[in-house]
């Protein structure tokens, strides 16, 4: 009889190996845990705080108050609890970061796959288009778009996502170029597999590791971009709190209440740092040559 648990004990599967390498990157593991906690806190926000994000304490109206037991990050000049506003701000920041990274990855993967698979004129046109978008400075372009369109949350996600696909497109293209001549692709072609079938069923799974890494890293970039936009007043508009627009309104009180500015920024830094460490860990896991 073969022992069924023998297969379970054998860690030498592709994913098992990757998981082992990931676990060795201690900062990445800690970062993943931290991001899970942040995401849960953002989702469960209404249950975690006795205040609402726009609820005002009339007794504290007029001046910001420093951190206290009842208000661990103090209150703002309208008597609103800063900790609650930072917590609700996490919802916007994490959502925008995640969704726009997914859009960027989707667009980039499709463009890169088509360019790398078909080559020739298709490749030429798509890569010139990539060059054009890459040659426009990102931050000013995003400021113009969101300043003119006054976007809601989802339009903002679309703007950030649609302007961030170029890196992924180049990455996927180069992966596809190197996979194009491999035997399993030839085999599928010989069996009559359609272009789309070969691209997305056979080639794409082989490129998933690097794509996952670049998606993760673009989450961090998107969070920074959204908070910069909201900081300038071109992003998500108050009263919806985001880490960026909390920082914007904190500027008026910087000299007498610097703690209002400290916390939202600290959360942006820690979140983006965690995302970048996670990306580094995933790179170790899926791309051991790096």
């Amino acid at each position: 009889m073969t022992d069924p648990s023998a297969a379970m004990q054998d860690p030498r599967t592709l994913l098992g190996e990757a998981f082992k390498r990931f676990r060795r990157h201690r900062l990445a593991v800690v970062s993943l845990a931290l991001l899970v906690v942040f995401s849960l806190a953002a989702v469960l926000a209404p249950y975690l705080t006795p205040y609402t994000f726009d609820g005002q304490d009339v007794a504290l109206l007029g001046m910001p108050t420093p951190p206290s037991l009842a208000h661990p990050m103090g209150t703002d000049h309208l008597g609103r609890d800063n900790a609650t506003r930072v917590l609700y701000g996490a919802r916007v920041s994490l959502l925008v970061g995640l969704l726009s990274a997914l859009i960027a990855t989707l667009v980039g993967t499709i463009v890169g796959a088509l360019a790398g698979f078909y080559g020739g004129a298709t490749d030429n046109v798509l890569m010139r288009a990539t060059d054009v978008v890459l040659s426009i400075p990102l931050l000013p372009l995003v400021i113009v778009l969101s300043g003119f369109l006054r976007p809601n949350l989802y339009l903002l996600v679309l703007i950030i996502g649609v302007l961030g696909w170029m890196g992924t497109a180049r990455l996927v293209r180069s992966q596809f170029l190197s996979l194009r001549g491999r035997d399993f692709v030839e085999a599928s072609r010989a069996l009559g597999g359609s272009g789309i079938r070969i691209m997305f069923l056979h080639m794409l799974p082989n490129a998933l590791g690097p794509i996952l890494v670049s998606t993760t890293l673009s989450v961090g970039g998107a969070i920074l971009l959204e908070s910069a936009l909201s900081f300038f007043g071109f992003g998500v508009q108050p009263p919806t709190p985001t880490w960026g627009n909390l920082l914007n309104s904190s500027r008026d009180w910087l000299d007498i209440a610097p703690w209002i500015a400290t916390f939202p920024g600290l959360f942006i830094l820690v979140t983006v740092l965690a995302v970048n460490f996670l990306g580094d860990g995933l790179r170790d896991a899926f791309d051991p040559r790096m």
Partner: protein
Amino acid sequence: MNLTTFIVKRVLAAVPLLLGISIILFGVLHLAPGGPLDVYADIPGVSHEALENIKRELGLDQPVPVQYVKWLGAAVRGQWGYSIRTGRAVAKDIRERMPATFLLGGTAFVLALAAALPLGVLSAVRQYSLLDYTFTFLSFIGFSMPIFWLALMLQSLFAVHWQLLPSAGMYTIGDGGFADRLRHLALPASILSVAYMASWGRFTRASMLDVFGLDYIRTARAKGLGERTVIYRHALRNALVPVITIVALDFAGMISGAVITETIFAWPGMGRLFIESMNGRDYPVLMALLMIGSFALVAINLITDIVYSIVDARIRYD
């Protein structure tokens, strides 16, 4: 193909690229709802006819493609038009702001490079040492940093709390001496350099480690050269080639990335002009600034390509 034809071909290829960029930018600016005349719309004294007249004067009543062709025709002759907000020539406005941006960007560039190169080389040479780990951790913090927040925090500490440095502007009115300008420059330039310091340092480290693995380094060691000679005379030279490309491209990005720093520190450069022009939908100024930013990226890309092909004999011109 010889070098001259290669250069000519590359320069010619940049023309359609710039055309594509200008079409996208012009479209984005002009097709978005609203326009520069929105400010007048709510004023009761301004009649509909008066608005139509201003529109006609500014050429905004014409179809966007017609406006684009006119803009392009003027732009290639060096005519960037007049600011809707101030009525001043765009070229003059921008020329006035350029020195401030280049002073800020240039200082940040030198600062970032002066820290990144030695740190990158050192942490590659002592890979997996305490110094390497510390530098790696700090550089992750560097490129995860929301620089507008760092700017606020340092402004609050150095300018408000300790009152060591001025909080905004380029010089004190009535002073403007070298020391005064240096004190105004210190905060914005250091803040602008943080992210680049981190990423160039990491890149230098990676590039050095790549070169350390090559055969010619083993040969150099095998023939008995000292470690210093191997690292600084043999490895560093080749490791710097890819670093230079990134650094050059980032310099173009730094000029447009100065938007944030210039706004927070009221630095009278092109970035602040950009934000000021955003508020009045000043199409001609916005268009000119965006084109300058894009042109800088394209030009530096082109120059590094050409320099590469001259420096590295392995690159073929095709």
